[in-house]
């Protein structure tokens, strides 16, 4: 039945432009190195070489500052296959391997990717070489992928990269890399849940449907599925009035707080609808902002296009009744 279909909304969690992160000493060395086609690790307190480097010893937390160039070749210590790369996340677009690769001269392996045609080409102990990105910017994917040692030697996996600077330790680009921008995007299919779905479907019929628990007189609107005083499920549906009382309000004079905000100044109010026991947060229009007051009686104004969407209750406006006495709403103010 259509009425029991879940209400689902696509939701994207993303920080526009990505996160900007400053690197600090060790990671600046590392990413500046990758930009120059070099892999830089650091010597730990017990004498091991770790890559990528950190500023602190992984076991003791002591400061580390003896940077060591490692590789360029390395060995695969563990691997797994990614049969379906995820667009927008994985930088390789065809199936590849994640691996723990230990560059020659390092004692601690790094997480990175290996580009081979098939999982049959992967094995623990295999020798690999870095394939550098043709244009490098100081990011972890400047090392585009590790590839089998033979592949790199014959140039098939190369990017026409000039590595002349590697031995001498001099970067082509003088300024060290000090920051990176990391895009992060997550996508969700959020479902409204039972209580909110019933409430929103009520709105599609121009009704306000609250809920209460068995044995309680308190009607919650919008309902969340439980009585917050006991946690008991609110299984009884109660249609509440479209008329209510302003219990408190504020006048906004700052423009542009949200895309859906009306022109300033506007009134946002807590409205105790007759028959409900929780105030409803809504806009009040049809009255000069200076005339809004606690106790004002208002009625709901709906969009012509009713739908399961909280925005189709557009605002409230005065209904002409005398103001409510303070005692009728004092517990909610």
């Amino acid at each position, binding site marked *: 039945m259509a009425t029991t279909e*879940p209400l689902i909304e696509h939701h994207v969690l993303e920080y526009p432009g990505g996160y900007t992160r400053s690197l600090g000493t060790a990671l600046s060395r590392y990413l500046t190195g990758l930009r120059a086609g070099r892999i830089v690790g650091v010597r730990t307190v017990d004498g091991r070489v770790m890559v990528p480097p950190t500023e602190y010893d992984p076991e003791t937390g002591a400061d580390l500052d003896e940077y060591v160039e490692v590789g360029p070749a390395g060995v695969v210590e563990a691997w797994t296959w990614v049969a379906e790369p995820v667009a927008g996340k994985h930088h390789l677009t065809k199936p590849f391997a994640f691996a723990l690769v230990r560059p020659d001269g390092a004692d601690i392996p790094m997480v990175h990717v290996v580009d081979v045609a098939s999982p049959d080409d992967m094995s623990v102990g295999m020798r690999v070489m870095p394939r550098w990105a043709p244009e490098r910017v100081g990011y972890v994917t400047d090392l585009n992928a590790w590839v089998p040692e033979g592949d790199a030697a014959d140039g098939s996996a190369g990017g026409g990269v000039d590595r002349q600077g590697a031995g001498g330790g001099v970067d082509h680009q003088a300024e060290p890399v000090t920051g990176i921008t990391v895009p992060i995007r997550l996508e969700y299919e959020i*479902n409204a849940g039972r209580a909110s779905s019933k409430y929103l479907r009520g709105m599609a019929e121009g009704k306000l449907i609250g809920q209460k628990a068995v044995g309680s007189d308190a009607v919650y609107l919008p309902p969340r*599925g*439980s009585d917050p005083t006991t946690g008991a499920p609110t299984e009884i549906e109660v249609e509440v009035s479209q008329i209510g009382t302003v219990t408190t309000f504020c006048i906004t004079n700052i423009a542009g707080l949200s895309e859906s905000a009306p022109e300033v100044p506007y009134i946002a109010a807590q409205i105790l609808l007759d028959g409900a026991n929780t105030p409803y947060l809504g806009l009040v229009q049809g009255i000069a902002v200076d005339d809004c007051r606690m106790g004002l009686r208002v009625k709901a104004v709906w969009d012509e296009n009713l739908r399961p969407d909280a925005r189709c209750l557009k605002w409230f406006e005065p209904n002409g009744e005398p103001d409510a006495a303070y005692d009728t709403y004092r517990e909610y103010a």
Partner: protein
Amino acid sequence: MRDVAVISFAQETADKDRERNEVEFIIPVVQEAVRASGLARHDIGFTISGSCDYLSGGPFTFVQGLDAAGAWPPVKESHVEMDAAWALYEAWVAIQAGEVDSALIYGFGKSSLTDVHQVFNLQNDPYTVAPLWPSTVSLAALQASALLAGSDVTERDLAEVAARSRRDSLDNPYAIVGEDVDADTLLARPLTYAPLRDADVAPVTDGSAAIVIAADDLARELCERPAWIRGIDHRIDAPHIGTRDLTTCVSARRAGEEAGALQGGFDIAELHAQFSHDELILRDVLGLDGATINPSGGALGANPLMASGLIRIGEVARRISAGDAGRGLAHATQGACLQQNLVCVMEGE
């Protein structure tokens, strides 16, 4: 030390529940755990939950969750952005400190709203690892690869764990995958995440769990056979997985040592093994010879993130309370490749 026991437990799971939201998963388990405890809701001294906002992609899910916990008039409350097994630890500490005599602990999460294995990439190093987007499963599979290469564990050992878990899940009404299957059958299936197969990976699960714990005579009065917490501890390893020996788990070993687990003698153990090889590593470091492992089917049968570790504690406790076990071990984990581990040792009286 005060004697503290688990006195009630409830759980709820589903495979991609499209009807209920996260908060609606809490309602039945809190109602049931409180009812079964024998305490009135507001006689429980402390309320604490475990959840993760990244599962639903919105902030402060746990605040809405309070509506389902019955939090008015105001309760003494806390929250961890972790599996609720760690919430239980905090509640246990509050009881040890003498602040309260009882606590309600609940954990909840819907993993089905997004690609949850990608989401947990955000807990990796944001400079050198997260930009490559290894999923939870990819990192676990690297650990499996390291274990297969660096120990005498074989792919068949993994398949035996997976097969036993799927068979045991058939008897667990809260498990979402269950199958009468043997290792040979599983070994014939594709290596979805080589060297792991689908059956080696915990299913994406929505769910919740709640537990009430109580101290001393209160527990004795309320529960015929309380599951006494004899030791509980949690430890964490370094985040950079390259720095760890992935064939073992030092933090789980240490947590087990501190919780008094290493003397053994367990009838049962519920391990939060989200991958087949996790169980083999944990059995090795915790010394569980002779114990029945994951009689519920474990996390390979159902793994509602943020509740799954708490469910391990509940599964052990309910068997002790029922008289089916005398001494049991519960384990919970967080982070990539068994980074952080909690061990809880429980006994009947």
